[in-house]
């Protein structure tokens, strides 16, 4: 059996290399890493800028947060972004000018912030209780997201494209008469994709978190990536066997990419609270992956038990489907 497995592995590995999906994975690795290192790390949002129109020069001390403008028009156009605040000292009574942001509390805060800046009483240092800096947080967060997307959507497509190619070549029909165990057939495919996903994970993590931080989180990340990869590969296997052609499969892929991953992203990234999200199975996989990147151990044993059960169940379903497909192909 081991000899057969190694032969099958060799064949699957060659098939994977010959398809264009290796190039696609490499290209996405480069694209993601460039985006993370050059763009996402630098994402920030500054504090509400304060513009001061002061024709009689009443204000002598100018805070760092304040910018002088020369006319009332300039003040109004500077505030047109609905984010900045203007202070007009032209008349006796100082006037705070701003465009409504649409959120009342934010407008209120902008007013008291502008007042504090005008009076110059801004100091203080809040206590810090976390361990991450902003850029490190950004790195961990976005790497987790890209990895999740890559594993759940792209890995799924990779396995399917390979299977369809084999289907076209008639491999399944041939396997029906060969004395090769069907479990081994599935296993070899799973192993190849698990391996390639893990390699991708290692590279993506090391490139974007840096070696030191990367190595620290990798053991936990690899476990979660492995679980996700197995589940997605088995699901992909099932659909690829079941659906008659690649075209229908790619539609399913589109649905998965949009409906399965987008809510998970929104809930995971923005803290939008949707109660129903706990019923979304992918959400738990994403949460576990993200927790691994932040070295937080919130994952419970029941999660692993469920995942293991899921993998076994999917394996059995895939096995069953393959058997049926083989008997149908004759």
């Amino acid at each position, binding site marked *: 059996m081991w000899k057969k497995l190694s032969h099958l592995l060799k064949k699957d590995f060659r098939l994977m290399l010959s398809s264009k999906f290796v190039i696609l994975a490499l290209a996405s690795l480069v694209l993601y890493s460039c985006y993370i290192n050059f763009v996402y790390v630098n994402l920030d949002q500054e504090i509400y800028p304060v513009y001061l129109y002061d024709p009689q020069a009443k204000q002598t001390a100018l805070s760092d947060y304040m910018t002088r403008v020369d006319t009332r028009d300039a003040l109004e156009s500077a505030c047109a972004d609905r984010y900045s605040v203007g202070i007009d000292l032209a008349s006796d009574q100082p006037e705070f*000018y701003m*465009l*409504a942001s649409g959120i009342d509390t*934010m407008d209120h805060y902008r007013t008291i912030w502008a007042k*504090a800046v005008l009076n110059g009483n801004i100091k203080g240092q809040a206590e810090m*209780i976390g361990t991450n*800096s902003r850029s490190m947080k950004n790195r961990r967060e976005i790497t987790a997201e890209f990895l999740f997307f890559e594993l759940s959507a792209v890995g799924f497509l990779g396995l399917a494209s390979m299977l369809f190619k084999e289907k076209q070549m008639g491999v399944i029909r041939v396997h029906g008469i060969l004395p090769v165990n069907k479990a081994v057939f599935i296993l070899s495919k799973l192993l190849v994709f698990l391996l390639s996903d893990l390699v991708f994970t290692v590279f993506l993590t090391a490139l974007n978190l840096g070696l030191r931080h990367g190595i620290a989180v990798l053991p936990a990340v690899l476990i979660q990536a492995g679980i996700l990869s197995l589940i997605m590969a088995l699901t992909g296997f099932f659909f690829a066997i079941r659906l008659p052609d690649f*075209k229908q499969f790619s*539609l399913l892929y589109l649905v998965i990419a949009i409906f399965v991953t987008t809510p998970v992203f929104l809930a995971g990234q923005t803290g939008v609270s949707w109660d129903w999200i706990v019923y979304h199975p992918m959400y738990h996989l994403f949460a576990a992956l993200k927790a691994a990147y932040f070295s937080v151990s919130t994952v419970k044993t029941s999660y692993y038990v469920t995942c293991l059960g899921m993998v076994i169940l999917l394996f059995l379903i895939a096995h069953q489907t393959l058997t049926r497909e083989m008997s149908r192909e004759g």
Partner: protein
Amino acid sequence: MKRLKYQLKNIRRDKMCVLTFLLPIIVGIAVSLLSGVSLQTMSETSFGILKNDLSSETAAWLKSNGCVTEYETIADLHQAVNNPSTQMIGVLRAGRGIRSFRSGDELEVNRVIADTLPWLYESRGEEHMYKNTVVPVSSGNDGLKSLLIVITLVTAMFMGCTFNAMNIITEKEDGVTFINRILPMTARSYLIQKILLGFIGGILSTILTALICMKLTLSQVVPLILIIILSAFISALAGLYIGHFSEGLMIGIVYIKIIMILFLAPPIFFYLMVPGHSVLFQFSYLLPSSAAFYGLMNMANGSAIVPGKDIVILAAHCIVWLLLYLFLFRRQKE
């Protein structure tokens, strides 16, 4: 016309194609159902407090400045502040005043708010001494929602491309292309039929999505339709290019994916990150989807200005890409 009927018949059998057109509409419905409130809380400053810690007056002051969440224990509060998906600032009582703490990974705006909050609280009594002008703005702050809607719309326009490419590649694989060669059909009528197919589908799907998601004024209808028509034409053309250059369905899908990323990612990136007057931003107009995206974005944000520039650029793209296609096609035939 009769030929077009055959083409349409051909599609009707293809469930994939029909669903491709329905997909953006479904997404559009989902986006417009997304409650505006849950998206809005994202840009609101959020404070975390401990139960029975702050006086009711202090809590009311905090509530006037942001969204306040109460936690049972200090450990829960610490965990919430440290949670990387939130920007929460922790606030505790300190004598007569307050003290704040943060996680250290916040955006600059929340860092400054957290640092200076106790001081702002100290000087809270003097608010009435000033005149305060808050100019109301007609459209609500649903920036993220309109971004989602526009992304859906651009994707919908792009469906014409996917559809054409798939259609042509399948024909190639089935050998219809060879049959076409001996049929008395000119390359020109083939081209027109194929463009028309993707074009009509793309337009229908986008207009339906736009009707569901966007609140339009009458003066916006004409520019919107122009933008939709032009972009649908370009994406149908892009589909022809893909169909032309790819041999099999799988390679075609890889190409479609790459072009889809190229069509969607740069406009979003430029729109969010690069100031509108910079040279880099002007460069982004080299991609046809950018013009469509910016035009739609302005409309979704409720701007009354007619996006004439975007429409002209789109039209120029249409002409250039069509001429290029005709040139390539003719050369290949010879």
